[in-house]
């Protein structure tokens, strides 16, 4: 089966030596993934990974129970979804008994931090999952692609070296990968899975090693005066339709049907569509993730109104790192800072 991101585009010419090596690496990692999953599948209840979808620019989650489907598995810059939410949220695992065999899952660097956070809070035990770690060089944000080029009907999307090549009904677009990466990827400090059983492909270089690069967007907002920040958020959050997609996609939003934005008792929010309700909803989401959010960017990726919702959590992550020296999702034995205390601290 032809796979989009390694398939060679017809219009692409003059493949340099480096590009060939790079392509070989991508192709090898996909084959390596297939091989490893094939070996592991008999010991697994299910394998969760990414597969190509009807839209070449996006992949779809796939739940593999038999060996025939393994060839559909794919990995690479188009695999933007964080799959770890499926481990704790229905309905994917509804039919899987608690004492069943482990579940295999593909994770990128950011996804692995969500896994660590889930293990920390005991939503998951380490032996329940077989982790296939995939070093990540950034994932493609299809909205950024659409903003750059007028797309009609994309036939295939392939990644070769640092370029995203689109075949759009006869026209070929060559876009620098760097320009269409998701916002969260551009300040990524952990492209390599922090927790894994097997690692596929070569490890990636972090794009950022300091807080200033990672939280560049947060700093950009903080440079504005208070009134301007309020105006910015009012105009952004005014678009919110409270579809709760951000909450549903978040792997750490684990209250499910007890979520206080929907419960009648206690009744925190009304159905009114005013800005205060929208603000409060995003405050609830953010405060419930304070010290837990790993910055995987799922909330922003799924937002139909293109609100930079991850930015709100990024600010809280920055506070946690500066105030309490804690970055979420790195150590499975650590306790999230707002779930514990230190009597000695007087500076905060």
């Amino acid at each position, binding site marked *: 089966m032809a796979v989009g991101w390694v398939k060679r585009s017809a219009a692409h010419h003059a493949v340099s030596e480096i590009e060939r090596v790079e392509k070989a690496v991508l192709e090898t990692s996909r084959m390596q993934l297939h091989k490893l999953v094939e070996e592991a599948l008999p010991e697994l209840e299910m394998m969760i990974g990414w597969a190509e979808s009807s839209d070449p620019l996006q992949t779809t989650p796939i739940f593999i129970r038999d060996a025939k489907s393994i060839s559909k598995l794919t990995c690479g810059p188009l695999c933007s979804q964080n799959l770890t939410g499926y481990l704790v949220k229905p309905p994917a695992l509804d039919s899987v008994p608690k004492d069943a065999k482990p579940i295999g899952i593909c994770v990128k660097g950011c996804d692995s931090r969500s896994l660590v956070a889930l293990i920390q809070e005991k939503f998951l035990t380490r032996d329940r999952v077989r982790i296939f770690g995939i070093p990540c060089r950034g994932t493609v944000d299809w909205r950024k692609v659409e903003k750059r080029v007028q797309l009609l009907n994309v036939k295939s999307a392939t990644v070769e070296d640092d370029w995203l090549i689109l075949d759009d009904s006869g026209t070929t677009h060559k876009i620098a990968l760097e320009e269409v990466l998701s916002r969260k990827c551009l300040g990524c400090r952990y492209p390599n899975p922090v927790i894994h059983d097997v690692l596929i492909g070569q490890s990636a270089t972090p794009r950022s090693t300091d807080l200033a690069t990672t939280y560049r967007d947060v700093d950009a907002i903080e440079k504005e005066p208070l009134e301007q920040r309020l*105006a910015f958020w009012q105009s952004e959050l005014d678009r919110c339709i409270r579809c709760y997609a951000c909450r549903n996609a978040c792997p750490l939003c684990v209250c499910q049907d007890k979520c206080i934005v929907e419960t009648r008792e206690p009744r925190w929010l009304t159905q009114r569509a005013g800005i205060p309700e929208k603000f409060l909803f995003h405050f609830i989401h953010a405060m419930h993730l304070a010290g837990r959010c790993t910055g995987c960017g799922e909330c922003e990726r799924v937002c139909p109104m293109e609100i930079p919702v991850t930015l709100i959590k990024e600010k809280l992550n920055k506070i946690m790192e500066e105030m309490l020296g804690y970055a979420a999702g790195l150590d499975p034995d650590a306790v999230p800072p707002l779930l514990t205390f230190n009597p000695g601290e007087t500076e905060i």
Partner: protein
Amino acid sequence: MKDLSPRSSAPADETAATTQGIKIVGFLCNWCSYGGADTAGVCRFKQPTDLRVVRIPCTGRMDPLFIAKSLIYGVDGVLVSGCHPRDCHYAVGNFYARRRMEALKAFLPFMGIDTQRFRYTWVSASEGQQWQKVVTEFSEQIHRLGPNPGLKQRSGDHSIPSIALR
């Protein structure tokens, strides 16, 4: 949400002119600060009248969202007060609260809400004088800031800044 529009009936005492229209919500821990406020009352210390007290069992009960919701829906100021650290009736409640409220305090201005409208403090049951001081100072601070503009309408006088995100 209850109507939070300014009071129509004027308060009776001579501070009426200054307190009118300003609403401050105070979340006080049952064991220390509520007692402290009571002590201040029993001792007849003069206090501003724009504080509405909500009694909570412990500052450990303080959800930062209580503060956020109050400010979002237009309360002019929020004051949280509990037992001094290491003096919590439940031993550790205020240690948890301290971290949460510090996080919220640093977070509020990011969303465009003035952090000066929120303060937390520690007052024990015997510190009537201290309570009077805290309330007076905070009330004066809120009066200086004026009524909370709130979020209800998008303010027309500010153009939306174009912040370049990555």
